[in-house]
Structure formats: C-alpha cells, structure tokens
C-alpha cells in the first residue's frame, strides 16, 4: 500500500525525516517497506515574471523574453522561447542554467539563432506532468501560474511537486491499517500519542430523506452484515481538484471524475470501499443483496461479461444484478454525466466470500483486496459520511438527509482479560499495570484491572497473548532484555541415525564423491525415459494437483532421474568427470490411487536412498578421476567396510532395466539385497544424452545405518605366512565362488585372501582362465610353519568342486 507522506502528515505530526519515520513505524509493527521520492529529479526551476517580449531578430517563430527571477533588482534573464501563449506579466516556471527537468533533460546557457538564451521557460510536460494533472495548463505552451508567486521561489514547492511515497507492507491480520487514517493511528502511537479521527460535518441541503429514494433488502446477512445507502441529488460530474487527483495518483489510483474519485479517496483514507450507482438504473429503487443465480451473466464496469455462480454475492434490483458485491460494479448502473441522483453504497461483506469470488472470477480489484482482509462493520458509517462531506465541499451535488442503514447485528467492542504478571513473565520485562494500560491506550484499547476493551476495528485481539504483543510493540521490542543464560539443561546432540548419516556423507566425500541436491518434482514422462515396465510399482507416484507444469507434476518415486539429470548436466557442460552422491527422499503412495473404496488416504512413505553416480571421460585414470565398474564397486566396498558392515556380497543381476545386463550386481548384506550397482544401460544413457559410460549405485539408506562401535582386536604378535597360488579354472566360474571354496577349507588361520591376477591368453587353455591369489595365514599364539597350512585340503576341495588345477607352485 502506497501512502504519500504529505497526506499522512495532514492528520498526524511526523517530526522526523521520512527515513527515520519509516524505521520508527517499522519497529512498532507497521512495515514501511520502501520509499519512492517524488519530484526530486527536478532541480533549479524557479518562478519568473515575464517583463518584456520582443521578436527574435533572426527567427520568425521565436521570441526573446526578459524574465525577472528575483525581487532585489538583479538583472532579468534573457530567454528565447518558441511559445506563443505568453504575455508580459505572466508568472512562469524558469529552468535556470544547470537545471534538470523531467526525463533527464539538462538545461545549459546557450545561443538560439544568435541570441543568448540564459535558461528555458517550461511547459507542464517538461516538469513531468500532463494537462490531466494540471487542467489549467495550456494545450500547447508554457505553463502560466494562475496567481502571482514570489519571484525565484522553487517551482517544486509552489506546485507541490515534491513528495515521498512510502510503501507499507501490511500483515494479513491488520485490516485496520489498510488506510491513511489507519497508518496515522499507528504513527501517532509510535510517537506516544493517541490518535483522534477527524470529525465530519454535513449540511445535507437536499430536500427529502434517503428512504424516499431507496430501499435496501439484505437477503444474506452472513455475507453482508451491513449495507448503508445515501443519496446525492443534482450531481455535477466534473474533474476533481488538483490536490485530490494528485493524492490519488501518488497512491496508485487513476483519477476519473469527481464522483468516482471521491469513492476512491475515501477508500484510501478510511479503508472502506464505496460504490456509486446511477439511481435511475436501479429498478423500483430497491437494492437487493442476494446470492447470484447459477450461471447468471453480468457485465462488469470494465465491459467484460462474467459468469457468476450461487456462492457469489451480488447487489441487485428486482430485475438484475447491478454489482458484484465488494468486487466491481456493473456497466448497467455506472454513473455518467446524465445521472439525476447518485446512490452511494457503503457496506460490509464477508472477507472469505469476497476472496473466493474474486479468485474464481480472476479479478482482484482495489475494493476486493480491502474487503478480503476483513473490515470493521462499524466503518461504513463514518466512511459514507466522509464521502458526503467531500461531495459538499467539492460542490458535486446536494446530499439528501439521512441514510438507509441495514445493520442487523452490530459488532460491539470485545472484552479481553489479561494478567499483567503473565505478560511480564512472557515478555521477560517488568512493567506496572498502569504502564501497560497507558501503552494500550495509545491503540484505543481502554484497559483497567486486567480487562481490556478492544475496539471493533481490532478483531485480531482475542486473548492475553494478543494483549502481550500490543504491549510489547508499544513498549518496544528493542527494550526487551537479551537473556543468554539457559535455565535448566537438556542433553542435546544427534541421534545414532543422524550420526550415521554424517558418517556416510564424510566417507563418500573422502572417497571422492561430491554431494548433489536435486528437486523432488518430476515429470510422469521419466518413467518411459527410464524404461520402467508398465507394471512397475514405482510408476504409482504422488500427483500434484496444482503443479507448476507437467514437468513438475509428480513427486519422485526413484532417485535415479535426478542423478542422471545431474550427470547429463555435467557431461553436456564438458566436465571431464563427475562423481556425485545424493541422499534423497522418495515418495511412495501407500494407497493405490485408482481404488474407489472410501478409505481414508494415509500419508505416503518417504524412504531415503543413497544414490551414487559417476562417469569419467578418461576411465583408465586409475585412482584419480578414473571410473569403471570396479572403481565404483571398490568404493562401495570401502564405504560398507568403513561403516563396519560385514558379510557383503555382490550377485550378478541382468534384470535391472536401467542398467547394463552384463555389468550389474545386487548388493547384499547376508541374504538381504540392499541395492544395485552397475553400468548405465546405453539406451538410458542415450535418453539422458550422456555420451560416455556411467556408473550408478542405489542403496536403501535404512539398510546401512549402523550403530556399531568397533571392538579393538589385539595387534598380531607372530608373523604371518603367505601362500601364492595360481589356479586354472573354467572362465565362467566367478571368482567369488572360488574364494568361498578356499575359505571353506582354509580354517581359522586364514586372515586374508586377495586376488592379484586374472589371466586369459596363450599360456592358458581355451575357455579357461588363470586366477592368482595371495593367501595370508597367521596364528595368534605361535609362528606358523609352511607345513601347517591346509594346502592339500584346499586344493583337493577346489579340484572336487570346480575341477580346478594348480597352474604352478
């Protein structure tokens, strides 16, 4: 809400700079958001008096003027102009040498066709205004002041071009602040004064009484708690005076004519929207406030046809609607120059209903914006009278005495009880009951002995906590002490799971993976992009009712798309490698969307996945940015080992649609499959435009959250003994099964088994491979000898199980 500071100052004293005022009122709870200085771009423009006009010796269309700009006998300025509307004795705006005009125009002394011109005489346009703003200005030519002005006076001040418009951001519970007077009340309170509303004086010169002219019937009192109608006769439609037009313009409202301008002016001043109808267009002069009919058609003031529904409230006569209540009037009843009498409406409408109506119709007007915050139903009376006062002052017509006021259930001030001690306790301050009462009085809340009488414009105050806030903000939040002593201790810290998550993140970063973060929203198209089968349960996603677009219309059920998108981004930005991990929540509906059974839906499950994704354009760059299946597998092994997870195995799985059928493994802890790891399927890589082999692992986080504390194992006292063996086996036998077989026979003395070579080639029979292991044996109580190793048993077992033979000794 924009308020010109000059308007505010006409009701309340502000003895400080605008910036200071903005700061002060913000600190009492009315946020002054920004400042728009008006007219300050104009500079060095003064009032001058034309003393002489002579023809320009060298130009027919120019004249040379002598302009006096001071009273103390200084030489008048010589200024050349092309204007034809001037005469000697005119007072005009003079832009001096060095002056700045609207639009950044800079004025310098110079010669025009050989004659010195020491400045410029200004039109209203050159000052940044139009004839709209200053109707007395000529259509074409220099602005001439209507009255003599002090010579040399600053034109910005004479024409009142300087102002500061302050933009306020209002809280949704403070509808009382959405007006100049509301802000004036807060301003006064900010500086310790109590604000008194200006009094309104009416002459009511017309004959008759309002009820002779109009009848009002409210059919829905819930949606329209109050309706006041007043009548003005002999209306003269004309432009409003400059001061009023300017206040409207600075507040962001376009002036139209005196009647419309007055309704807008009072809306800005009091926060009460008003509406004016041509009374001749109200059939039988009977206002009916009713719900719209289903599919009722209505043309609003802006010429648009609107289709209404039964939830909406309209102002109607016996035959037709004439306005959508609180939102916009109708084309059929708008006030034109021919109106014999005008009906002014000042009413109160239900805030929520107005908001929903304006939303449904897609039309948020100044009026609906005010109503939807909820306005005090006692406000329409004073606002309508203020409008009538302006009608009389501005000589727009004759006000008919009295009014029709339908107000079946008047709102009364509410009593709110509070305990000063509780308030001191809650705020951490120590005010006396009297001090609290004085602070509340600044806000028109009269309090005594723990009972506050809250004015009807403050429906937000309903309990002790609200009273506490009013006291706190009037006392000053900055005066509330700062306490940094904690009274009583609590055992803070992370729980085991949170620590484990930290651990996992740190380990992955040590392994060279950077942490990614992706959005939860996805497009339903990604299911096909990821080649998910039609019956894949992950296709059942949580759908967003009001998405930002189809691409963001479901909640992810798999972390894969986000990771692949990130790899793709990196690849397409020509990054040589990417190594990413993410801990991602996915959202799995707990009910099967399509079911028609009337069961109450339950919240989706939100399991978290650890996703790792990596590629390298130089896959062989071992140990650094290199990346292949075994790099990633090694990192996962390292991660799980560091987490203290034993019994990890990897089993080939050719059936993950997104991964390479020959290069994918299930990751298992014991019998439990915790995830998959593999090379990205070329089809999927193509779908994501990743032009190199990528590797992906997805692990269910819950399965690797460990709370184990490792137990110290005594350091070995006796040396180990190693046995290297090279075995020739059929190429299809997986090394894991050979290792398993060795372990079965090696006994407790075996402490480590490591594969150091796999060879296929000329030295080896076709369809066979050579695998070489180093077996490390150690006893805890003695130095082992080579003869103690269970060599024969192991070799025999391998021979029996796989037909494995020893290649060399």
């Amino acid at each position, binding site marked *: 809400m924009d308020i010109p500071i000059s308007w505010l100052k006409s009701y309340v004293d502000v003895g400080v700079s605008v910036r200071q005022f903005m700061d002060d009122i913000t600190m009492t709870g009315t946020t002054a958001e920004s400042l728009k200085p008006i007219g300050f771009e104009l500079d060095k423009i003064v009032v001058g008096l034309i003393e002489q006009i002579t023809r320009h010796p060298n130009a027919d269309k120019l004249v040379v003027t002598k302009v006096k700009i001071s009273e103390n006998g200084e030489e008048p300025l010589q200024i050349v102009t092309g204007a034809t509307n001037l005469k000697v004795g005119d007072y005009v705006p003079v832009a001096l040498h060095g002056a700045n005009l609207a639009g950044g125009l800079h004025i310098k002394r110079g010669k025009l066709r050989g004659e010195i011109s020491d400045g410029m005489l200004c039109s209203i346009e050159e000052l940044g205004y139009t004839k709209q703003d200053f109707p007395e200005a000529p259509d074409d030519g220099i602005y001439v002041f209507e009255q003599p002005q002090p010579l040399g006076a600053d034109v910005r001040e004479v024409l009142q071009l300087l102002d500061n418009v302050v933009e306020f951001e209002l809280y949704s519970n403070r509808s009382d602040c959405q007006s100049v007077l509301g802000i004036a009340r807060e301003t006064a309170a900010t500086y310790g004064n109590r604000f008194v509303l200006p009094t309104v004086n009416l002459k009511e010169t017309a004959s008759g009484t309002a009820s002779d002219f109009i009848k009002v019937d409210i059919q829905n009192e819930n949606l329209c708690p109050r309706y006041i109608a007043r009548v003005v006769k002999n209306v003269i439609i004309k432009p409003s005076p400059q001061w009023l037009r300017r206040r409207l313009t600075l507040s962001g409202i376009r002036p139209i004519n005196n009647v419309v301008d007055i309704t807008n002016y009072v809306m800005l001043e009091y926060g009460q929207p008003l509406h004016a109808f041509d009374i001749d267009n109200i059939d039988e002069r009977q206002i009916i406030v009713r719900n719209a009919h289903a599919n009722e058609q209505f043309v609003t003031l802006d010429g648009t046809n609107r289709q209404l529904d039964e939830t909406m409230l309209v102002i109607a006569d016996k035959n037709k609607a004439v306005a959508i209540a609180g939102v916009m009037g109708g084309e059929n009843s708008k006030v034109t120059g021919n109106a014999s009498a005008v009906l002014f409406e000042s009413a109160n409408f239900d805030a929520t209903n107005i908001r929903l109506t304006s939303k449904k119709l897609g039309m948020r007007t100044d009026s609906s914006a005010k109503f939807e915050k909820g306005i005090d139903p006692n406000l329409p009376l004073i606002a309508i009278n203020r409008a009538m006062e302006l009608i009389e002052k501005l000589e727009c017509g004759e006000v008919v005495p009295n009014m029709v006021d339908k107000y079946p259930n008047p709102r009364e001030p509410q009593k709110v009880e509070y305990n000063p001690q509780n308030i001191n306790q809650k705020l951490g301050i120590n005010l006396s009951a009297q001090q609290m009462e004085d602070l509340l009085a600044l806000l028109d809340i009269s309090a005594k002995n723990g009972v506050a009488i809250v004015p009807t414009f403050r429906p937000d105050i309903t309990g002790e906590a609200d009273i506490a806030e009013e006291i706190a903000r009037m006392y000053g939040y900055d005066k509330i002490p700062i*306490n940094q002593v904690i009274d009583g201790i609590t055992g803070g*810290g992370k729980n085991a799971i949170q620590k484990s998550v930290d651990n996992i993140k740190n380990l992955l970063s040590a392994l060279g993976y950077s942490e990614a973060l992706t959005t939860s929203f996805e497009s339903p198209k990604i299911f096909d992009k990821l080649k998910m089968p039609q019956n894949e349960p992950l296709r059942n996603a949580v759908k967003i009712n009001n998405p930002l677009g189809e691409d963001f219309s479901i909640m992810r059920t798999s972390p894969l798309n986000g990771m692949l998108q990130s790899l793709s981004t990196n690849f397409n930005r020509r990054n040589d490698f990417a190594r990413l991990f993410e801990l991602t929540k996915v959202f799995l509906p707990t009910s099967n969307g399509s079911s028609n059974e009337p069961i109450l839906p339950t*919240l989706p499950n939100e399991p978290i996945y650890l996703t790792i994704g990596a590629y390298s354009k130089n896959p062989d760059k071992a140990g650094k940015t290199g990346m292949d299946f075994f790099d990633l597998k090694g990192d996962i092994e390292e991660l799980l080992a560091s987490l203290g997870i034993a019994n990890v195995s990897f089993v080939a799985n050719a059936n993950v649609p997104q991964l390479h059928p020959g290069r994918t493994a299930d990751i298992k802890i014991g019998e439990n499959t915790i995830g998959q790891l593999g090379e990205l399927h070329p089809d999927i890589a193509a779908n994501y435009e990743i032009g190199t082999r990528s590797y992906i692992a997805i692990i269910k986080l819950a399965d690797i959250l460990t709370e184990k504390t490792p137990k110290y194992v005594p350091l070995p006292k006796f040396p180990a003994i190693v046995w290297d063996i090279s075995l020739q086996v059929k190429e299809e036998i997986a090394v894991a099964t050979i290792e398993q077989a060795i372990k079965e026979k090696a006994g407790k003395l075996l402490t480590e088994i490591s594969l150091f070579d796999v060879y296929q080639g000329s030295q080896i029979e076709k369809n066979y491979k050579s695998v070489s292991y180093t077996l490390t044996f150690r006893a805890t109580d003695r130095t082992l000898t080579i003869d103690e190793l269970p060599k024969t048993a192991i070799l025999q077992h391998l021979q029996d199980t796989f037909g494995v033979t020893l290649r060399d000794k």
Partner: protein
Amino acid sequence: MQDKINELQESIQQKVSKIANLTDLETMRVQLLGKKGEITQLLKSLGTLSKEERPAAGQLVNKLRVFAETQISTIEQKLSKEKLAQDLQQENIDVTMPGRRRLIGHLHPLTLVLNEMQDLFIGMGFTIADGPEIETDYYNFEALNIPANHPVKDEQDTFYTDEGFVLRTQTSGVQIRVMEQNPVPPIRIIAPGTVYRSDDWDATHAPNFHQIEGLVVDQNVTMADLKGILILFAKKILGENIKTRFRPSFFPFTEPSAEMDINCFVCQDTVNENCPVCKGSGWVELLGCGMVHPKVLQGCNIDPQKYSGYAFGMGIDRIVMQRYNITDIRLLYENDMQFLTQF
C-alpha cells in the same frame, strides 16, 4: 721390525693422502687390515719372536694398527660426506612441477551451512527432529492456528496432492509432532528440512528449498530468551560484527511474533538509498520468530498456563547464497562439478 713398522707407517700416510674414492679406500683397507693384509701379517709374525721381544713388538704393531684404522676411518668419513653431497646433487628435482593430487569429494554448501547451524544449536542443548515432507492439512496448517480459509492455503502458494495432502510449506509440522510426543517439556529441538512453495524457478526462487526451525518449550521461557538465543545464532553464523534488530510481525502460530533483521550485507556501513537488497533501510530480514501461540500449545495438550515457548524459522538457501556470494539459487540444484568442488 721397528724399521718395517716405520716404513709401513710412512707408506700408509702417503697412500691415504692420495685416495680419492671409497673403492680405493676399501682396497687399501684390505691390503693393510684384511686377512692377508700387511698389518695382519705382522701381527701373525709376532709368534715367531722370542718371549722377551714379543711385548714390545706387539705394542708397536698394535699402535700401527690403530694408526691405520684411524687414518682410514677419518678419510672414509670425509669421502662419505663428499659422496652423499654428490648423490644429493644428482637427485635434484623440479619442485615446481605439479603435485599428484588425490581426489576428494565436497559436501554440498547447504550441508556445510546446515552442519554449522546444527552444531551451534546442539551446543545449546538442542536435538534434531525430522518429519514427513508430504503432510496432512492438520500438521501443516490447522495445528498451527491457520484457519480453514486462510489465504496462505491458496493453491497459488501451496502445493496439494491428489489425495488432499500438502507439500509442507514449513517444517513446523515437525514441531507439532514433537510436542504431541513430549507433552511434558522441556523441549529443545531444531527441525531442518526441505519445504515447498508454489514459486516458479528463477534466480531467487525455487519451488523447493530448505528451512530450519527451532522450538523451545519449558517453564518460564520468555521473549528475552528468544532474543538471546537468536542474537547469539546470528553472531556465530554470520559473524561477530553483525547487527540485529527485532520488530513486530505476524504469524498465526506465534503471539507475540517478531522478525529478526540483520544489517544489510550489501550496504555495510553506509546505507545506499537505492540498494536493491535493503531498499535503503539498511536492514534485511533474516528470520521469523515469536512466542508459541497458546492455542498451538493447547492443541498439543501442553498447558499454556504452566509452560511457554518460543519458535523461530528461516530459509537456509538464502543464507548459503549470501555466505558464498551465490547469485542464482538454481546453481544449488544443478550439481555441476565445477560448482560443487568450490566448497
């Protein structure tokens, strides 16, 4: 004998002075002190002497042996030193060549800032609570004293699912869940997490971002405590020189409500009238806070007559952007390695 010894001693002295490397020295040592060396031979020949001659001769030969050993070891030390110096000279490398760097990963800047905040609050006795991102209307709105027709529930602000759930617009639902589970305070928790608002992606907005909220409920908790903890927080996270101010605000779930501003990080000492960040006020909003509304406590079966509490909440993404001079929020969600490895 005496003559032979003298002769030998003289020849040792001469030879030693000419020896230029360790190999020649070793040859000489063998010649003199080896199994068949000249001095060894002399020692062996002592046996041929008479009993009377032997002690004196023995003394002389021993003296010669000590002399030879000393000479050799002195020259050996000298030559070794020279050789080491030579070797070191040859092993010169160009230390300005690049080191072989290992690859380490980087935590996301959001995690880094969040970790710092968590550490700070943990140090003050807070625990960390978590809750669902898809919430019921009750936990996201109703329990927070946001009435049924409140504008914040509009679809232009809040995402709804086809089953009528809400993508949480704040992590406050976690606070409610914690209070319901702990009807007997003290409660000191923070709730960090992803939240959702119906904003299109642009440089400063994202439809999902991150928040951290805090809640303290106990006996005698005051607004002075709230100010105390948040001022401390601002100084620890944003720097000791940060200026703060509390001003009245409105949230349905707190009363009194406040906003904490910090001094504008663009304007610094002299406020710029046209500053796009603070709009010339010198202050920018950091977080919202307040005393927990009695209705909220009541809804969780906590007696507002006996207990009071405060709550606060702020966006983390903006703080991250401010700290690292990140000008576009979308960078946080793109996962470009060139971006991530800067932190």
